[in-house]
Structure formats: C-alpha cells, structure tokens
C-alpha cells in the first residue's frame, strides 16, 4: 500500500509540473508610442503601384507620400506633397507645384523628377497598376517637369475626379522601386513577418505639420498584426494590446459595450448594403420554370414585400443595422434619393400579387401556373453569422407565402465560382462594400455588359428595357459635367431598381468600431480607412 501511495504522489507531482509548464501565457512585444491593430490577412504586395487588395491598400495609405490626399472626412481633395494644384478648364491638364524642401524617409531630396517617374511607372502597361485604368487611356498620358518643383500631366480625355486618382499614386525615388521601405508618407515599412505582423516606423522626414507646427506623425510606429480571429482580436483589444478595431461584429458590440462603454462607437448606417438577388441569367443551368419565376418582376417584388426588414436589422444585427430599400445608403447624403417610392413590407399584398401572377397555394405549398412547387435555395458565404441569420429569417418569412427555401452556406471560392463563372445558383445573399460614395465607382455593378452585373453578368445586349435604361442613365452620369444632371440620372437608376427589385435590399449595416480610450485624435469617417485616415494625428495618451 505504501508503495502505491508513493507512486500516486510522484505521478501527481509530475502531472502538476507538466500542467504548470503548459500554462505559459503569450507575450506580445509592443514598442512605446506604437499604435497597433489587426489586419485580416497578409498584404499581397508592398509595391504601391501594384496594390490590388484591401490590406495592401491600407499599408500604402499609411506609408505612401502622395501629391494629393482625398480627405476621408471632408470628402475633398487636399494637397499633400504638392503645395498647390490646378486643373485646366477642359480638364485635360493638371499642374502640381511641389512643396519646397521635400525629402524621402532616407533623407534624399524629393523633386519633380521622382514624382514624374512614379506617375509614368504607374501608367506603364508592364507594371499592371490597377489605378492606371482610371486614366481611361493610360498610354496617351504624358508627364512633364519644366522645373524641380513643377509637374504637368497631360490627359487625352477628361477624367472625372482626377484629383482622387492621385491619392493612389505613391511618389517613390526615381529609378528605385522601394516597395514601401523608402517613402514620403508618415510611416515607412520597417519589418514584415509573414502571417504575423507588418511593422511600420515613423518617417523622420515627413513633411506634415500640425496646427501648432509640431512634427507629424505623433506615433512612433504602427504594428499591423495579421489576425483573422475575432475572439482573439477582441480579447486582446480589451486587454489593451490593440488600439482600435475596424469593423466590429454586432454580437461583440454589446459585450464590449458592457466592459468599456467609452470604447465602442456605432456611427449609424454605413455605405455598405446587404442584399439578396435572383439568378436571372438566361444561360444558367436551371429549369425553365425557375428562370421564369426569377425573371418575373411580380415574383421579385412579392418576395421583397414578404421580408420583414426590421426583424433582420433587430435580430441578425442586434439593432446595429437599418432596413434598406434602395441601392444607395442614406449615409451617402449627396446621392441618396429621398423621393424614391419603394415596395414596403406587406405580406398580404405579396400574396395577392403572386395570385395575380398565376401562383396558387396548394395546401401550404405555393405552386406556379404549371404546377411546379416554388422552392429555391439561398446561397450565402459561410463565416458571416449575420448573413446566415438573415437567410434563416427570410426562410421563415417566405414560408408564410408558401415558398420553401433552403439555406446553403459555401466558402468564398466555391461561392464565387457559382456566382460568376457557372451561374449555378438560384438566389444569393451577399453584401456589397461601397468604398466610394460617388456612384461612378459602381459602374461595374450597373452596366449590363459588366461581369459584376450580378443577376445577369456580361450581357451582350441589355436583356430587358429597364436594364437598357439603367445603362443609359449610368453612362450619362459617367460623362456629364453637370452635377444636377448626374443626380437626376442616379435618382432614376435608384427608382428603376426599387421598381424592378433585381437586388432586394435588406439592410444597411451600421459602421461599428472600437477605439481604445487611450487613443487620441480619432475622428471616424464613413470612407475607408474610416478610423485611421488621419493616422498622422493619432497618438496614445501618455506617449510623447
């Protein structure tokens, strides 16, 4: 017996020691004065000309020196590296006057030569810069530098919002691609560990000054941790490891609000929309009767009327969303159509409209005129809890009409393949991120010939009269210099969309952020990057 108890004791001791060794916590080294937050994935590139994903764009925003900066708060173009700029009346000549005494982060002088080289490099087809498309015909653009501080850009055709385009062109040292290591912006890329973090340090030669003339940026650096896990992000934020959360999921909003009420912000509806649409592509591998339902305006409007959007906002987003009826969010003050007439919630009206269109209730199952039961699937992406909840709520709403809905959540690549390549789906529920309030940025979605014309991509000619009308109106707003005319065209598009319901808009999710009380200077804006657009002016309390 004694040996038995001895054995027990020794084994227990080993066990306890092992457990103690395993419980070591995690340390996250943080430099003084350094701001930290997370990004969802590794930036694909640090070359500012080749940026084509969101996180690379963020790194570019934080590090690049640009001639003009589009102020995300006032939504006006401001000179940054340029002291002043002017646009000729015909819109084909842009003249920049650089500030005196500009330097790159390594101390070398920044002159018009560098600016011209950077612009030319972006326009080169070999670079493949996405921003080159904004120039319409990049090959015909010429850049001149009559002297060290002047840059003249000649455009073959007028470009609407040319000022904003220069917000995306980083000025790098001539003949010397630096991939973010030598910049003229507030920060410089200092260290990159794949799948772990990107570390930026302050640019000592940044030309920005605050109102009192102090050197900007205030922060000594920025650390962007690559983290895709909301739980950990919020836990680390609550512990002070991160200073802000861009895009807080609604269910964590309430939790953080209880812990630190001062930290969370709900800025009201964002520019983004969540919508459902039916597959109207004639080439889709669907039976003919299903295509007939989806191409019928009465059917779409009836489905739209049956959905209780207030419930979607209240339950799926826990109140942090606004019911949506129109393609443009009310947060987009300049372009939102206040006088639009939309089909509101009315299940009784929906039922009678379906009856008029030839659908009949057989017991509790709705059937169309040919006797086929009305069943379809709603596709959405896995990993978004709010969308899944909305789909389930819609499933229940449509059950009252007698329509049987299956909810299928797929991973993104498989979803995109169905949406954009094979058109093998019936209905889809996804969100659209609108980064730019100007409707011109949404041309790809509304033009019927575009591959992003979700309900019927890449049409050779508009399939219906109303799609042709949308094409006309969007082309008009793209080319017209008259603001009032543009507004009328965009209003018309919104009304057509509300009448025809190709997209059944569900909610506008609110812009939810968390900002540490220690972080000073944050002025959240509706445009990306909403919290750090004024990164130079952000600093931690107590830091220098």
């Amino acid at each position, binding site marked *: 017996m004694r040996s038995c108890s001895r054995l027990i004791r020794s084994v227990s001791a080993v066990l306890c020691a092992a457990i103690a060794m395993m419980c070591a916590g995690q340390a996250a080294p943080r430099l003084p004065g350094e701001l930290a937050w997370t990004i969802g994935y590794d930036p694909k590139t640090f070359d500012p000309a080749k940026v084509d994903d969101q996180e690379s764009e963020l790194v570019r925003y934080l590090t690049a020196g640009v001639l003009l900066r589009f102020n995300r708060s006032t939504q006006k173009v401001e000179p940054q590296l340029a002291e002043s700029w002017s646009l000729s009346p015909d819109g084909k000549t842009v003249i920049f006057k650089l500030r005196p005494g500009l330097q790159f982060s390594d101390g070398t002088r920044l002159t018009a030569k560098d600016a011209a080289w950077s612009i030319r490099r972006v326009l080169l087809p070999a670079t493949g810069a996405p921003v080159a498309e904004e120039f319409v015909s990049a090959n015909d653009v010429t850049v001149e530098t009559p002297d060290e501080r002047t840059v003249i850009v000649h455009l073959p055709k007028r470009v609407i919002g040319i000022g904003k385009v220069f917000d995306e062109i980083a000025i790098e040292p001539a003949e010397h691609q630096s991939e973010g290591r030598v910049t003229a912006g507030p920060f410089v890329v200092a260290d990159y560990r794949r799948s772990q973090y990107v570390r930026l340090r302050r640019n000592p030669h940044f030309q920005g000054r605050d109102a009192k003339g102090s050197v900007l940026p205030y922060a000594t650096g920025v650390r962007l941790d690559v983290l895709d896990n909301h739980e950990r992000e919020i836990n680390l934020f609550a512990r002070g490891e991160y200073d802000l959360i861009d895009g807080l999921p609604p*269910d*964590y909003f*309430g939790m953080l609000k209880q812990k630190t009420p001062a930290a969370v912000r709900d800025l009201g509806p964002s520019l983004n929309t969540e919508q459902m649409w039916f597959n109207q592509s004639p080439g889709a591998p669907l039976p003919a009767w299903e295509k007939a339902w989806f191409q019928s305006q009465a059917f779409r409007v009836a489905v739209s009327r049956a959905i209780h959007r207030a419930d979607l906002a209240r*339950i799926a987003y826990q109140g942090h969303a606004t019911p949506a009826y129109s393609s443009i969010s009310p947060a987009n003050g300049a372009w939102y159509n206040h006088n639009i007439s939309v089909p509101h919630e009315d299940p009784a009206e929906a039922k009678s409209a379906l009856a008029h269109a030839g659908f009949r209730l057989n017991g509790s199952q709705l059937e169309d005129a040919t006797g086929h039961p009305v069943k379809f*699937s709603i596709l959405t992406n*896995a990993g978004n809890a709010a969308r899944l909840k909305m789909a389930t*709520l819609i499933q229940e709403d449509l059950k009252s009409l007698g329509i049987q809905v*299956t909810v299928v959540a797929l991973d993104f690549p*498989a979803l995109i393949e169905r949406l954009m390549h094979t058109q093998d*789906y019936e209905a889809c529920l996804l969100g659209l991120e609108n980064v730019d309030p100007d409707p011109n940025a949404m041309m790809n979605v509304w033009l019927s010939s575009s591959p992003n014309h979700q309900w019927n991509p890449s049409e050779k000619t508009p399939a219906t009269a109303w799609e042709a009308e949308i094409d006309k109106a969007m082309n008009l707003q793209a080319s017209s210099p008259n603001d009032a005319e543009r507004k009328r065209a965009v209003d018309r598009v919104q009304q057509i969309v509300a009448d025809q319901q190709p997209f059944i808009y569900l909610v506008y999710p609110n812009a939810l952020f968390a900002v540490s009380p220690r972080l000073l200077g944050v002025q959240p804006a509706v445009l990306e990057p909403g919290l750090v657009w004024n990164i130079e002016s952000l600093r931690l309390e107590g830091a220098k």
Partner: protein
Amino acid sequence: MRGRVLASWLLLGMVLIAIAVVAAPGSSYSNQDRDLPLAGSSAHHPAGTDALGRDRMVRVAAAYLLCLAGAICASAITTAAAAGVGTLSAFSPESLGRLGMLVCDVFLALPWLFLLMMVRSALPLTTSPAHSAAITFLVLATLGWPACARAVYRGACDLRNAEWMLQVRAGGLRGRQIVRHVLPNLVPLLIPQFLICIPAFIIAEANLGALGLGIGEPLPSWGGMLLELDNSAMLLQTRWVYLPIALLILILLLLEAIAVEA
C-alpha cells in the same frame, strides 16, 4: 453489471423524453418568436430561446435525436471499417497486408477537404436539410477509418503471432471463426475509438457547415450549438448555452458506463 443496466435505462429514458419534447403538440424547432431572441427561461420557453427566438428545449431535443443517431451510426461504421481493414490486413498474406496499410497511409495524407467540396457541388442546392445531414454523416463515416485501422492492424498482428493463436490456426480454424476469436481481444482498442468518434463527428458535422454540407437550417444541429460556445459574447449572454454540452457529456459518460468491461 448494475451500473450498465442503470446507464442503459437512463439513456433510454433520455431518448424517450427527447421524443416527447419534440412530438409535443405546439412545439416546433423552427418557429421564430421574434420578440424574444436570446430570452431566459419562461413558462413558454423553459430553456429560453436562441438568437432567432426559437425554443431552445425543442431544438436541443431534436438535435439530440438527429445528431446522436447520425453520429452513433457513423461512429459504428467507421469503427467497423477500421476493424475490418486492420484485421483483414493482419490475417492476409504479408503483401496484401502491406498493401492495405499503404492505402491507409495514402488515405491519411490526402486533403479530404476538397473531396467534401466536390460532394457539396455535386449535390443539388435544394437538397433538403435532412438529406444533407444523412449525407454528411455518411461521408464522415467513410473518411474516419484510416487513423484507427493501423492501430487495429498492429493489435491484430500481435494477436496473430500470439502463441494461442498459432495453436488455434494450427488446429485448423479458418476465416470467420478466427475473427470471432480475434475481435474480443481488439475490443479495448475499438470501444474507445467508437466513443471518441461520436463527439468528433458531431463537431465535424458542424464544421462542415462552412463548406455547405452539414445540417441545413432550420433543422437544429448539435454541433452548431456546441460551436456557439466559442463566442464569448454568447457565453456571457445566457447560461442556457451550456445545455447542449452538458447533455453531450452526460450521454458519453452513460455510453462509457454501458461499454465498461465486466
């Protein structure tokens, strides 16, 4: 012996209670009481409601019946497959045995995630949730066997080389009768494997929801309810979120008690 009987009765009792809860008139696992999402317990909803206002008690009972049946069947199939492959490989001529283990190794290393995606894309999108559930458990059952098969193979090889087995085979016993002698000795390996597979499959079914397989809405998924536990906001909102995990642990302990050696 008494423990086993008691455990069996308890298990049966739980199944009957679950059936009673689900079959009770007026109870529905999909009805959304939209005014009361994530409510606490009340007369109308004894275990509160979930995020969409659906009665938690009915959903847990329905999930219990559905997922337990699916997971137990899938576990049984997997364990049987592992036992079969392992034993056959051990008692076949050496080259066949090695071939069997080669197939096992290849199976283990292949990325089955993509096969699951292909299964999903082959299924029509309007597959009913019940069919989708059955197919998911079936697919899980066919993919779970390699891990255990090798251990069974090892065990069976040792048995084959044991003295009493040599005597038995020398005495002229063949095939099915050998299996009858072998399997009881492999039980210490197979029973734990069976019991471990049950929660593993329940959770795997929920994870497959990310690929489009799994149990579709509005059918309740026990694995899905378990996965709610990883959301700290949920953990803080309601204590009823612990009901599914408590039930699962109880079931597993009862099954252990039933499967104990005399």
